[in-house]
Structure formats: structure tokens, C-alpha cells
């Protein structure tokens, strides 16, 4: 029997499964997500896919070498406020860190242009009420010196008090613990003795970084989602074992790789908001095969548009996560999002004759008007339907028939109030949304010193391929790739299966010049030891090739901007150190503009980082060897009337079955390319070309 890789990704509406055989055969399936117990949806989607291959669930599990899972269980717990009752133990006098929130109100998901309207600008509900936060006597200073030793008596009283109040998880975070973790570790020991069953997280274990608000928030969030996520993953892992899967389940994490289920149970925070990340890791993998090292990934679903970057073959990283207005430290793949999806609502200001699109969204419920679920306000999807971009009969694999007449009616009303023709109005609505997406791409690139002209845009998600032909070129990119047309809408599940195992280790030590090679090497060696220990522990799951990548983040003393410089290895020579400054200035100018660095200022080292990667088995994609310009029979499905903004009129437009196109096929717009669950809109003056992996490339003519 063939052996398989399986990726499963839970989304808001559907759970997607992709199975890749070592013969390169790809099978995709969807099943409804099951919020009351997500593992049912996971197994259902796997069963559907296995069924397509003619196997039972057990059979497929037994012959699987790698099963990778992307979960939203932690994210949902935060959003639905269903996490554990958490207690916090912290340095006395600093109990209010997560309430003060650095004096900000958390801007996540906010429309910045309305930020001055304070009556709708509150802080989120505190993760932990003040009554469950215990400050105890202990103090370490910025050098890591103990100013006041840990007071064990107070510690025991604090623990007792929290346990009496019924906490289910405890987060420990002291000031400067990333410089000296002993106090936190001692409290953990005492907890193990007093309350062995309580879920415990230490900030110095989880995210040993500089800045107590974001570190404590990370620690508290980890405790908050810990019991729920751990329970879910352990149950699922057991089910797979029972079904005959022989390896440890791998879980998608925010850093752009996977971790074993064991690590995910200790540090569930690593899985928080990891959903969109798999799309970036899948793009990285496909980019490697296709020879693209600079990629802008764009994922558009019903409610949001997510932009990620692969630069020089690696996903662009960030160290800050955001969920529900909480900001927390976490090494993650940097993904920028705006609430521009198919569900973005159209707003009309009749008095001034104005139109706006988003950021409010109709969401999945009621959804666009054409879903027929009670939506009454026009959305981008309604406009796309009216234009002829989407076929009302083929939406979501044909499982849902769209009500075109209802969409036409609301778009007609909008057009009438603006004194426009309905089709021009619908095209305008789509254009406004597409330009907003182009602006987000610009924000994610140009505003960080990255030139989008050096990048290709990968477009996936249910709606990405529909709009990429506008937003990508508007943002300045030269080419769009719709990866593996069959999988565009299940791309994150594929990405999960294509991800390597990744562990990120960090030490923060703020060191001003002059730098010493031995001091730096010492920190790097300690990171190396941590990674070695983890892999020794996880032996068995890590049969692949292990590689370590070291870096240091440097900055001008007295400034905030940090620049990450990659290092040749863990053992630095004085020569390596001497080169650092020049590399810093080069990179700084690249990111912040010519002449932006200031050579008279001292440099400071801040973060020492190790990314340890274990290669996992990869899906083997089958290449076609011979190109043909001849479009196979049956590919042209027919035609329908589509309104093209650039032409200013409706044109009878050919519709193709994108899944049947073969290597070498080229189609010139206007045209519509359909797959089972997404649509590629090929505007006039655009050309589509199918490459030897079956990806569709779009360029401007």
C-alpha cells in the first residue's frame, strides 16, 4: 500500500483534509466543523478523503507516516471566553500589569479611523480578575541580580489562597524572570508539591522575553487555554493511536512549523491563532519547488484577508501575537489581516452620495444576501455574483445554491441610491474591496522596506483567486500564482502537511558595545543545549534532518527598532563579531531607508535566537514533463455573461474547468476558470498559464 501524509485544518465553517500519497496523488475533502467536539469533524473529513481513496479510516491511519493538525480550539476558547479559571502569581506591587495593558486599549480589529470614538473603544474583559492575582515578595533587577529573594512563606499562602478560590490553572510571571528564572521555577516546584493537578505555566519557560505586559499576557493566555487544548489534543492523539497511526501527532504552531502533541500540551499558546500560518508554510514549500524565494501569501475567506510574506525562502517572523485585543509575546509568522472578505458590508451615505465597503462584515451568519439566510445588506460576494464572477450553482462545491435574484435586488437598490447602473456599481464595490487589499499588501511590504515588485503573490482561500488578478498588480507585484488549483480552498490543510517541525528558543540579554565573542557564544550554546535536550526527549518523532539557525537582534542604543542578523553558527569568533556592525547597517538601511542608521550611536544586542528545524517527509508533487498549448477537450464548460469593469460592459465570457487544464495551457482574459470550490477571475489584459505542477500563473499582458 502507498504511504500517506495527512494534513487536517479546522476552519470556522469547514474542516479540511488533504491526503498526499508518496505517489504524488492528492485527495482533498471537507466536512462541516463540529464546535461541540471538533475531533468529530476532524475524523469525518479524514473519512471522506479516505473513502475517495477506497480505504477505511483505520486503513488510512495505519499507512500514514505523518499526520499534522491545525487547531483553532485555543482561539475559540479565547473568543468565546470559555477558558480555564486562571490565577496569577507575580511580583508584589505589579499585580495590575494585565489590567493596565500599558495604558492602551488594544487596537486589534479596530477601525483606526474611528479610534477617537471612545464610547466604543473599551478594553477587553480582563483575562484574570484582580482577586485572582497574588503579588509576593521577590525581586530581580535588570542585570538579573536578586534584590529580594523569593519569599516562600508568602508563596505558599498565595497558592493556598488561589486554590481556595478554585483556580484551574496558574500562571507565574515575575519581573525580569527572563534574566533569572530561578524564582519562577521554585514556585513551580512548590506548586507541583501543593497542587500537582493544576495546569502551571512559567513565563521564563514559555516566552523568556523583555517586557512584562506581553510576557505575562502570554503566560496567562497559555494557562487560560491550557486545560481545554491539552484535553482535546490528548483525546485526539489517543483516537489516532487507537486507529493505528504509529507516530506522534504533529500540531501546527504559529512559528511556521509544527510541534509534537506533547509540546503543544505544555505550551498550547504556540497553537493560538495558528490557522492562517499553515497557508504560509505551504506556500514556502511550494515556492521552494517552483523556485520562488520571495512570496506574498494572500488568503481570503468570508470574513478576512490575511497577508503573509516569505522572504529569501523563510516566512517573515514577528514576536508579537494579538488576539481579542490582548498583545502577547510569541515567535510567530507575521500575518497582517483586515476585515475585508466576501462578507464585507456595503454602506451607503445617501446624503453625500458616498459608498464604503467594510470593515463591518456579514460574517458566516447571516452572511451575504445571496446565501438566503436573512442577510439584507449588500456584500462583496453579492456584487461578485451579480457581475457573473461566481456561478450560483457551484458555490462551495455546489453544496449551497446562491440566490442571484436577491443579490441583484440589493445591488440594484445600492446603485439606484448612487445614481449608477447596477453592474458598474457592483464592479465598483468589488474594486473598492480589491484596492483595500492592495493597500494592506502595501502596508505589509513597502512600509517595512520591502519592495513588492520583487515578489510573486500566492492567492488562496475561497475568494483569493477571484480578486488576486486586481489586488496583486495594484500592489505592484508582477505575477500571481494560484497554487494547486484543486487545493486553493484547502490550502491550509496542505500547508499543515508540508510543514517542518520547528522549535524556537530565545534569550534576551541587553548588551551594549563593545561586544565579546565569548559572551555571545555562551548564550548561543545555551540555546543549542535547550534544543538538543528537546530533540533527545522527542526521539522517534524526529527522524528527519535537523538544522539549527542562529540569529541576534541588534538596535541603536536608545532606539526601539530591532534588526535580526543571522549568524554562521553558535561559536562566534572575534571576526564574526567585527562583521556584525556592517551587516546591521546594511540591513537597517534596507529596512528603514538610506541614511537612516546613525553610526555615532552605540549598538545594543537584545535577543539571541535559535530556530531548530527537523525536516519531515514532504508531499511529492507530480510534475508534467511535456507542455502543450492544446487545451484538452471538456475543459471549456461553456460561457456566461460577465461584466468587466475595464471594458465597461458585459461580455459573453468563456468558462473553463481549471482542474482539467494541463501544463502549457494558456488562456487570455476575459475568462473564468472554475474549480470545485473556487473561481479564478481572469480580467482582460491578463493571461493565465498552467505550469508543470498544475499551478495557475496570472500575469499582465
Amino acid at each position: 500500500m502507498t504511504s500517506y501524509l495527512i494534513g487536517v485544518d479546522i476552519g470556522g465553517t469547514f474542516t479540511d483534509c488533504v491526503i498526499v500519497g508518496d505517489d504524488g496523488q492528492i485527495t482533498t475533502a471537507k466536512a462541516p466543523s463540529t464546535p461541540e467536539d471538533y475531533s468529530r469533524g476532524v475524523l469525518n473529513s479524514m473519512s471522506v478523503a479516505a473513502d475517495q481513496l477506497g480505504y477505511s479510516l483505520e486503513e488510512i491511519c495505519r499507512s500514514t507516516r505523518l499526520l499534522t493538525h491545525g487547531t483553532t480550539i485555543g482561539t475559540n476558547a479565547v473568543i468565546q471566553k470559555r477558558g480555564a479559571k486562571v490565577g496569577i502569581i507575580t511580583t508584589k506591587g505589579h499585580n495590575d500589569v494585565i489590567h493596565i495593558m500599558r495604558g492602551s486599549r488594544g487596537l486589534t480589529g479596530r477601525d483606526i479611523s474611528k479610534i477617537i470614538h471612545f464610547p466604543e473603544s473599551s478594553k477587553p474583559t480582563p483575562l484574570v480578575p484582580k482577586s485572582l492575582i497574588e503579588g509576593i515578595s521577590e525581586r530581580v533587577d535588570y542585570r538579573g541580580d536578586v534584590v529580594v529573594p523569593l519569599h516562600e512563606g508568602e508563596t505558599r499562602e498565595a497558592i493556598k489562597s488561589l486554590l481556595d478560590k478554585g483556580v484551574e490553572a496558574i500562571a507565574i510571571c515575575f519581573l525580569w524572570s527572563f534574566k533569572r528564572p530561578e524564582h519562577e521555577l521554585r514556585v513551580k516546584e512548590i506548586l507541583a508539591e501543593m497542587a500537582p493537578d493544576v495546569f502551571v505555566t512559567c513565563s521564563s519557560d514559555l516566552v523568556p522575553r523583555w517586557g512584562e505586559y506581553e510576557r505575562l499576557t502570554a503566560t496567562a493566555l497559555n494557562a487560560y487555554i491550557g486545560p481545554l487544548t491539552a484535553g482535546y489534543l490528548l483525546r485526539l492523539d489517543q483516537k489516532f493511536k487507537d486507529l493505528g497511526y504509529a507516530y506522534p501527532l504533529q500540531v501546527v504552531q504559529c512559528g511556521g512549523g509544527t510541534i509534537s502533541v506533547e509540546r503543544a500540551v505544555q505550551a498550547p499558546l504556540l497553537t493560538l491563532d495558528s490557522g492562517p500560518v499553515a497557508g504560509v508554510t505551504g506556500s514556502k514549500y511550494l515556492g521552494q519547488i517552483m523556485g520562488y524565494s520571495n512570496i506574498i501569501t494572500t488568503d481570503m475567506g468570508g470574513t478576512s484577508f490575511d497577508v503573509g510574506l516569505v522572504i529569501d525562502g523563510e516566512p517573515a517572523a514577528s514576536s508579537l501575537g494579538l488576539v481579542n485585543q490582548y498583545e502577547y509575546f510569541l515567535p510567530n509568522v507575521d500575518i497582517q489581516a483586515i476585515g475585508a472578505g466576501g462578507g464585507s458590508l456595503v454602506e451607503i451615505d445617501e446624503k453625500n452620495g458616498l459608498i464604503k465597503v467594510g470593515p463591518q462584515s456579514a460574517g458566516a451568519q447571516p452572511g451575504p444576501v445571496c446565501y438566503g439566510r436573512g442577510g439584507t445588506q449588500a456584500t462583496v460576494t453579492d456584487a461578485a455574483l451579480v457581475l457573473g464572477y461566481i456561478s450560483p450553482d457551484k458555490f462551495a462545491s455546489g453544496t449551497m445554491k446562491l440566490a442571484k435574484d436577491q443579490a441583484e435586488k440589493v445591488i440594484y437598490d445600492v446603485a439606484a441610491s448612487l445614481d449608477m447602473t447596477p453592474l458598474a456599481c457592483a464592479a465598483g464595490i468589488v474594486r473598492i474591496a480589491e484596492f483595500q487589499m492592495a493597500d494592506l499588501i502595501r502596508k505589509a511590504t513597502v512600509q517595512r522596506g520591502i519592495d513588492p515588485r520583487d515578489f510573486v503573490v500566492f492567492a488562496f482561500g475561497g475568494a483569493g483567486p477571484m480578486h488576486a488578478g486586481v489586488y496583486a498588480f495594484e500592489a505592484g507585484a508582477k505575477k500571481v500564482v494560484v497554487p494547486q488549483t484543486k487545493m486553493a480552498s484547502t490550502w491550509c490543510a496542505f500547508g499543515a502537511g508540508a510543514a517542518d517541525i520547528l522549535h524556537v528558543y530565545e534569550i534576551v540579554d541587553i548588551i551594549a558595545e563593545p561586544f565579546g565573542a565569548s559572551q555571545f557564544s555562551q548564550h548561543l550554546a545555551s540555546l543549542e543545549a535547550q534544543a538538543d535536550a528537546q530533540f533527545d526527549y522527542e526521539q522517534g518523532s524526529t527522524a528527519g534532518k535537523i538544522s539549527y539557525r542562529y540569529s541576534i537582534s541588534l538596535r541603536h542604543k536608545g532606539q526601539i527598532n530591532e534588526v535580526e542578523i543571522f549568524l554562521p553558527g553558535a561559536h562566534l569568533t572575534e571576526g564574526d563579531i567585527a562583521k556584525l556592525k556592517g551587516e546591521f547597517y546594511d540591513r537597517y538601511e534596507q529596512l528603514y531607508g538610506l541614511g537612516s542608521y546613525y553610526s555615532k550611536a552605540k549598538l545594543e544586542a537584545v535577543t539571541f535566537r535559535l530556530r531548530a528545524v527537523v525536516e519531515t517527509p514532504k508531499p511529492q508533487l507530480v510534475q508534467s514533463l511535456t507542455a502543450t498549448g492544446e487545451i484538452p477537450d471538456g475543459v471549456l464548460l461553456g460561457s456566461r455573461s460577465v461584466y468587466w469593469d475595464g471594458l465597461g460592459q458585459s461580455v459573453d465570457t468563456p468558462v473553463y474547468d481549471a482542474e482539467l487544464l494541463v501544463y502549457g495551457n494558456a488562456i487570455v482574459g476575459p475568462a473564468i476558470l472554475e474549480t470545485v470550490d473556487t473561481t479564478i477571475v481572469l480580467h482582460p489584459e491578463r493571461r493565465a498559464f498552467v505550469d508543470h505542477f498544475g499551478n495557475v500563473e496570472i500575469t499582465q499582458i
Partner: protein
Amino acid sequence: MNNLQRMPKVSELPDVSFDGVNEPYIPGETLNISPKLKLHSKWSDDIDPISYEVIRHNLWNINEEHGATIQRISGSPVAIYAFDLNPSILTEDAEFVFFGPYMQYMSGVTDVQVKWLLENRSDNPGIEDGDMFLANDPWVGAAHQMDVMLICPVFWEGELFCWVTNCLHQHDIGGITPASFCPSAESTFDEGILIPPIKIIENNEIRRDIEELYLRSSRSPEIVALDFRAQMAGNMAAKERILALIKRYGPETIKGVMKKIISTAEVDFLEKLSKIPDGEWRERSYVECCRPGDRQVYPAHILVRKKGNHLTFENEGTALQDGAMNATYAGWRGSVMVAINQILCWEQSFAMGGALRHITFDPTPGTFTCARFPASVSTAPVQAMEIALYPTYNVLAKMVYSDPEMRKDIMCTGGSSQFPTVFFNGLDQRGDRYAMGLIDPLAGAIGAFSNGDGISTGGQARTPICKIPNIEHTEQLYPLLILYRREIADSGGAGKYRGGLSAEVAFMPHNTEEILHNTVSSGSALPTSIGMMGGYPGVTNIITFSKDTDVLTRMDEGLLFDDLEALGGETIAVPLRQENFSQKAADIFSVTWSGGGGYGEPLEREPSRVAEDVRAYSVTREAAHTVYGVVLDRETGDVNVALTKSLREDRRHKRIQSYEGDVKTLEGELILEVTQNINVRQGDAGKHYCCSRCSADLGAISGNYKEACISENLPLSVSNPLIGDPDRFVDADPLFRQFICPGCGFIVETEICLRDDPFLDDIRLQL
């Protein structure tokens, strides 16, 4: 006492030249621009709604990218944490298209400086493509000398198409005190360099001679030079993108969109004004201490007059300029504009040009919120400008209250309403010189709303997206050990809806011999986060210095404490303005900043909310009883409904029991809801105010309703239990005045005032 005789307003001084030299620059109706400068003034009125929205969004994004560029390149804590900057786009004749979501008062200082430039530089040295102008003169239009503007004209085919500008607070530009906040300055000659707009970039190149002149007065020229490059890059990025838009869509379309952004905002603003009755609304507040050793207080007044489709703002009644507490016209106007934008224009995404067409600013020159040259103004933003800003929320709230929709936008005065400025300097833990201000009070507090509680440590309304540093950031940079930073129960003003809590930060020196402090703190004796419509004020600023405490001994014993009382030592009331105050090893310096003001009568707060406040450590049990009249079960903390009801009734009864006048109830037609406590009804003898609850007659609308109320002068500590004895700081006799409805005993309004103050005539309706 200060001279309060009636002085002429700007509109009453037709012969005075408001040219930005001795008097503040106030642009006239038309600008006097040299014919050498050609303005691009053709635009299209025929823009389809889709193009409009696409281009509007682009222009908004350009301005956002402008701000992000400055932050990115500057990299300084001022730019990144305090967001003390703002970028703008203006039309060729200096009307706002957009300003940014950063430091809000900077909007008000931007258009006037560009207008001055048009009038004064278009002939000599001329305004050309490729130029940029540097400016920081507060009489021309800066808020204070450290707010340095870089102004960039954008040309299209030889005509001035529009302006992009930015303003960024500089770390130090000279003057007698490090960091250029000069609390003891007697005039601007003691302060940083003054620069009326000068051409610092010519033909896209920095003029080295001018740059050296600019940097020469600074104690940290490297940082100022880097910030200057950040400002330049921000303008360049914005200019390039606007030119790209013009190329793509044509100049007349882009200009048409700019004009339509303004006119759309104008239409919306006028629609709002049309829903508001004509009248005058007034607020009064006090600033303390204008120079070291001073124990006086100085009134600041704000008045808004609404007549038809026009608003006029005045400061009549404000004390004369004196010492170092002053602001110029631009700072006052910019502050008032912050509140106007937030209450009346918040849907307009920072496009204020339309509203400004219908607003007149008519202050009285020579007062401390509209000071003449050469007054000291370096501390303007933390004192005179804040006392100009926050009371404006109250006058606008009362102006819009009668409209049920606009009522939802009301906000009470927020925390740090007089910023407790603590600048410290000395040798840091590495032996290097440093000078830095305590940024923590920027965590402020947001005042209560008309439909909900304020936001605890929710920031300062005038810098809506700022963040304070982590403790670990501050301790890394400066030789401090921060003992605690915590929210303070009862610091938020009481009311039907409670003001947000403020916080306290306390620190001791660490790895240094001594810290030297320069302090400016008004709002320490009299609360400046005043309440609204019966609400109580938030706590005052409290700066405490505990000398020779036991902290080191206690630490040796292994104990930390999170309040000063447990640590002994001698408590010294820190003078409100002082320089080079020394803090040694066992001395603790603590700053509590003012909280948010409360909205409405505290006795009307839902008792269950008070119980929840007590559980959440927002209100103490004592205050729940004394201020809110809520009785909680000792064990469970739940509300004792029966006892609460009788306690509250008893309180109201006591307030009115000795009233001997007649209470007449009005039953005529309800004409207007004036505040949450006052209605206007048609009476037999014309329109009368009455209590909104019991309809007790409060007199004709031609008079002051307060005359018909029972007035009670109470100590300040009744208004907020955390407020200490004002006698420590000022000679005046301040008090908390309540105006009680003689019919039902509920509070109609409150005042923070001096004993001799007449009742403030806060509402004058023209119905």
C-alpha cells in the same frame, strides 16, 4: 489675586496685527499670498462614488504611511511609545484633508503654520518645488518649542497642489532645563530655540547651514538630527504617493476628492448643528502654581456659543499670562479642536477642514491660554493646553445633550488632566548622563460616558493610540527600581457612570547615588478631572516624596510592600514646580495621576454595579457606602437592597429637609432635555427649567437654574475620598459645590470652585 477685569477679545481688536511676532498669528478670512506662487485651484465636481472612495482610502493610507515612516525611521521612544507626532495633508490653501490618529492637538497647530508660511514666505525666499520648511515658533503656531514641524509643499506642473506636513516632539532643543520643559522659565528667552518657518530643504537637499543652526542649541543633537531625517522621509513618502495618484487619476480628480472630503465633513457637521438649540455653554477650571514657590490658583474659562450654523469658542474670564504656565493661541485652539473632533466629528476620520469652516476661535490675548510674546510656553501641553482641552468636553456635552444620538458621544474629562510632569536626570547605572520624563501618566484614564463607565488606565484622549513602557523597559534605561505600578480604587470620579481609574507608580534609585527631579504638577490641590451633570471628579494628582524610608531594611528582611505607609520615612509634599529636587537611596518618589471624571448622580448608580466595582477593586467598601449610598453584605459582598434603598432615600431627604422655599411642579409641554437632570418645559410665564425627575420648577431659562437649587458648599474630600488638604499647595479656599433639586433631593449639577466664586452660568439657552 489675578486681574480679572474685562479685556478685549481678538474680534474686538480690529487695529491689532495678529502677525505671529508680538501677538499670535491668526489668519484672516483671505490669505495674502505673493503672486509669485501659483496655486492649483481647479478641481472636478463630477467624481463617481467608486473613484471617490478608492482615492479617499488612498489619501487616508498615504497619511497613515507618512506617520508610520516617521516612527520607523525615528525609532525613538517619543515616537514609538508616546506617539508624540502627527502627519497631515492639507489643500493648497491649507484646509485639512486629513490629519493622523496620533497626538491630536497637533492638528490645531498645523493649518495655522502653513497659512503663515503662505503669507510670509511666498515672496521671499519663495516657496518652490523641492523645498521643505522647519518651524517651531509658538506665536506662529507651534504648541511649544519642542514640537518641531516640517512642512512640505507638493507641486504639480509648477503650481502648488497641496501640502504634506508633520510635527514631532523633540527630545531637547535647548533652554535652561534638560529636555526643554522649563518649569521655572520667566519668558521664552529662557527656553529652547525659536524658529519661525525657515527653508531647511531646498531643491530636495538639506541646507547644511540651516541644519547646523537648528541642532546647535540642543543637548542631544544626534537624536534631533535622526528625527529630522525621519520627518523628511515621512514627507517625501507622502509627497511621492500623492504625485503618483495625480499621475494616475489627474490633478482635477484628486483635488476634487480632497474638496469633497472637506465638503462631506462640512455637510455632516452642519446637520449635527441643526439638531442643537442655540445658546452658550461655559465651564471653569483652575491651574495651580505658575512659578516655583507660587501658591496661587488661576481660573481658565471656556465658552462655546452656538448660533445657527456657527460655533464660537472663547476663553473670557481666564487669568492673565504669568510665570511659566502659558500657552499661545495655536496651543489653545489645537486643544479645543481635540474635543470638537472627538465629540462632533468622530465619524469623519480626521477630516476636520469642513467643520473648521463654521468655527471661530475668539480668545482674549494676554490671558494664559492665549499668551503674548515673550511669555514662557515650554510647558504649555501639560498645563495650559490641558486646562483648555478637558473642560471643552463638558461644554460640548451640554451643547449636544438634547439630541439623543449625539448624547451617546459624550465623554467626561479623562485622567492626567493636568499631566504630572516628572523629569529626572543624573548619571545612569552605566555612569552616562541621562535626562528623561516619566511617561507613565500617559496611561491616564478615560472619563465616564453618558451610557457607561469610563475606561481605567485607558490612555489620554488626546493621544488615542499611545502606550506606556513596560517596567522592564524603564528599568533597563534608567537607574530606577519601580516598587509598584497599580490602579487605584476610588480614583475614578463617582457617578451614575463611573470615571476610569488612574494609577500610581512609585520608584527608588537603583545603582546610582542620586536622581535629580524637575517637576511641574498642577491639579494637585483642586481636581481638574471634573465630573459632569451631577458626577464627581476623579482624584487629583498626588506626588509624594518619602524621605529616608525603611525600604532598604525591609528588602534585606526579604519583604516588598506595595504602599508607602508601611515603609516609614518622612512624607514631604513635593512643591508643584521645583527644580533639582534630590532623591537618594532610601527615598521613594511616587506619582498618582488624576482619574476620569464621573457622569450623573452617584446615588443613581445601579447598586449591583457598585457591588461589582467593590469585587473588582475599583471602589472601596467605604466609598460604596459614603459616596454611592450602597449597603453591601459584609460576608458575601452582595447588595442589601432594602438598606440601600432606605439609605439613599435618607440621603436625599437630608439634603432638602431644611429647604424653606416652595416647590412648584411644572406640567407644561416638554420642550427640551437640557442635561440628564434638567428639562425645559413650557410654563405659564414662559419656558422654564425643571428637574428631569420630579419636574420641580428651576426658574426661567433667561436665568441660571442653579439659583433655584439648594446649593451646598462641601469640602473637596467629599467629592473624592482620595483628595487631600489643598492647603498644602495653595492659599485659595477651594470647595465642592452641589446644586440639589429642592423637589427630590437629587443632584442637578456640581462645581469645583473657590469659596468666593459666583455660581457658574454654565447653560444659557436661546429657545
